């Protein structure tokens, strides 16, 4: 049984205006998140990602369907029991949501007091958390004295305070610059690897998915349209929305106008080599080089997800006997002749 299980979950919100239509935020979602994995949920704004993640810690209750976390049906629990469940699920936010009236120390103290942790244990735990996120020197700073990255690190420390088994990250890096994003993603990976905490991360940034997640689910209009290991989604996106997301990071094989432009710009023939491994790139290059042809990489890219490599390169090939060579190379698996 997965750590988090959603079965045929629907969530409909009452209309915001009198006489308006009810809003179907989630329309029949099944989701399994295994213990120890980092599961990304990707989608455009309004796809239902935020609502979905709020079902996991019962900030929202489903209209129908079941939400099971660690064997407990959340949709059947009362408010008092839910409060206890929530103490075992940490959450971090795009806008950090730290209390401005409290120092870093005070912000970390809040969840520990809620959990009824005694004075001495609280002190010890807070100092442990501060060291874990690398902010030991900021204990008595107020949130406005911290940078965005530091604020999110406090947010992470606060979410970890009560030793949760799950961490929910709602667009946790969307308000940060690229350097800080990397820093926070590194910390989240450490949370996953060193503490074994399962992470569900909501994002619209494919870079976050690529560098952090193990599995990914793509949402569109309240449904999960595609789900699987990150590498599969990147290398072989099935749905249009997934392709749009993947194309923000990975170059597609040129076609249409892009292909026309390449043709005009480069004389000779154009071939595409898939780098995912069936034919080694060096075989292609060797075959072309021994015939004295000039080869130029004109488009494409090589991508890495964990140990896996995928992507393609488009080559412009010129020289005497180019047609024969291209015909021969084009028979190799993973090579396609474009023009």
């Amino acid at each position, binding site marked *: 049984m997965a750590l988090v299980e959603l079965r045929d979950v629907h969530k409909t919100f009452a209309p915001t205006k009198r006489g308006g239509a009810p809003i179907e935020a989630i329309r029949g979602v099944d989701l399994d998140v295994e213990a120890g994995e980092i599961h990304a949920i990707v989608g455009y704004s309004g796809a239902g990602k935020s609502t979905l993640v709020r079902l996991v810690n019962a900030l929202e209750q489903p209209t129908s369907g079941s939400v099971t976390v660690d064997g407990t049906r959340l949709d059947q629990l009362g408010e008092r029991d839910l409060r206890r469940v929530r103490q075992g699920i940490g959450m971090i936010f795009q806008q950090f949501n*730290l209390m401005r*009236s409290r120092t870093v120390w005070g912000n970390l103290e*809040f969840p520990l007091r809620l959990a009824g942790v005694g004075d001495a244990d609280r002190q010890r735990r807070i100092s442990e958390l501060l060291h874990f996120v690398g902010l030991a020197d900021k204990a008595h700073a107020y949130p406005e004295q911290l940078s965005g990255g530091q604020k999110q690190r406090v947010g992470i420390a606060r979410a970890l305070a009560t030793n949760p088994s799950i961490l929910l990250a709602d667009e946790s890096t969307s308000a940060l610059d690229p350097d800080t994003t990397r820093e926070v993603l590194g910390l989240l990976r450490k949370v996953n690897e060193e503490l074994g905490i399962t992470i569900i991360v909501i994002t619209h940034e494919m870079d976050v998915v690529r560098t952090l997640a193990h599995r990914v689910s793509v949402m569109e209009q309240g449904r999960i349209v595609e789900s699987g290991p990150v590498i599969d989604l990147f290398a072989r996106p099935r749905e249009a929305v997934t392709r749009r997301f993947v194309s923000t990071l990975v170059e597609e094989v040129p076609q249409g106008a892009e292909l026309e432009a390449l043709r005009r710009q480069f004389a000779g023939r154009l071939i595409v080599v898939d780098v995912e491994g069936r034919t080694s790139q060096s075989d292609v290059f060797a075959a072309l080089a021994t015939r004295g042809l000039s080869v130029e990489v004109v488009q494409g890219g090589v991508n890495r997800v964990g140990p896996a490599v995928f992507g393609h390169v488009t080559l412009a090939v010129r020289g005497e006997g180019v047609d024969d060579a291209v015909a021969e190379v084009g028979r190799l698996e993973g090579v396609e002749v474009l023009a």
Partner: protein
Amino acid sequence: MISQDTNLPELWSLIGTATWETAYMVAITVAIGGVLGLGVGLALYATRAGGLFANRVAFTLLNLVVNFFRPIPFVIFIATVQPLARLVVGIGIGNKAIIFAMTLAAMFGIGRIVEQNLVTVDSGVIEAARSMGASRLRILTTVVVPEALGPLILGYTFAFVAIVDMSAIAGAIGAGGLGNFALQYGYRQFDTVVTWTVVLIIVAFVQVGQFLGNTAARRVLRR
């Protein structure tokens, strides 16, 4: 210009009494009205749509009551609540009765001020507290109020000045204080010196309150 026939020299001890009366009328009103107003404000904030204890019926009713009493000019309000004052403090005139009326008026006014300041608290912070498993009542007392403390202090300071203003017509039901004194011994006796002396004392009184409020708010807001 300063008329030689002022009675100011003989009136100092009476001015002292009046100052003391104003101080304690205002202090009691700020204290009791402040607490009750905080309650009204929290109730308005919590029951409004999307609030922690969202309850349309409760909010509509409370909102209606506050809106009904707030616009009544204070001098008429005193008369309106006079029967209630007899019931609660046992007398319809004098200092006790005016404190009762002021407290009631302050409660509604402060309630609105509190509500307005609480709605500025970032809903994300409340959601974060909910995600940590905090109860709604706990969020109200340990998150919402502390987060809004700076503006709340400024709101109370504003209310303090309004309460001093209210106390000026205490004489309408035979109560004392500086306002009544200025009318009785200054204005009605055409004794400009007395009027202005009392006005200056009231101004100083308000200044001290405003200064304390500003200082406290700056402390809390750390700027």
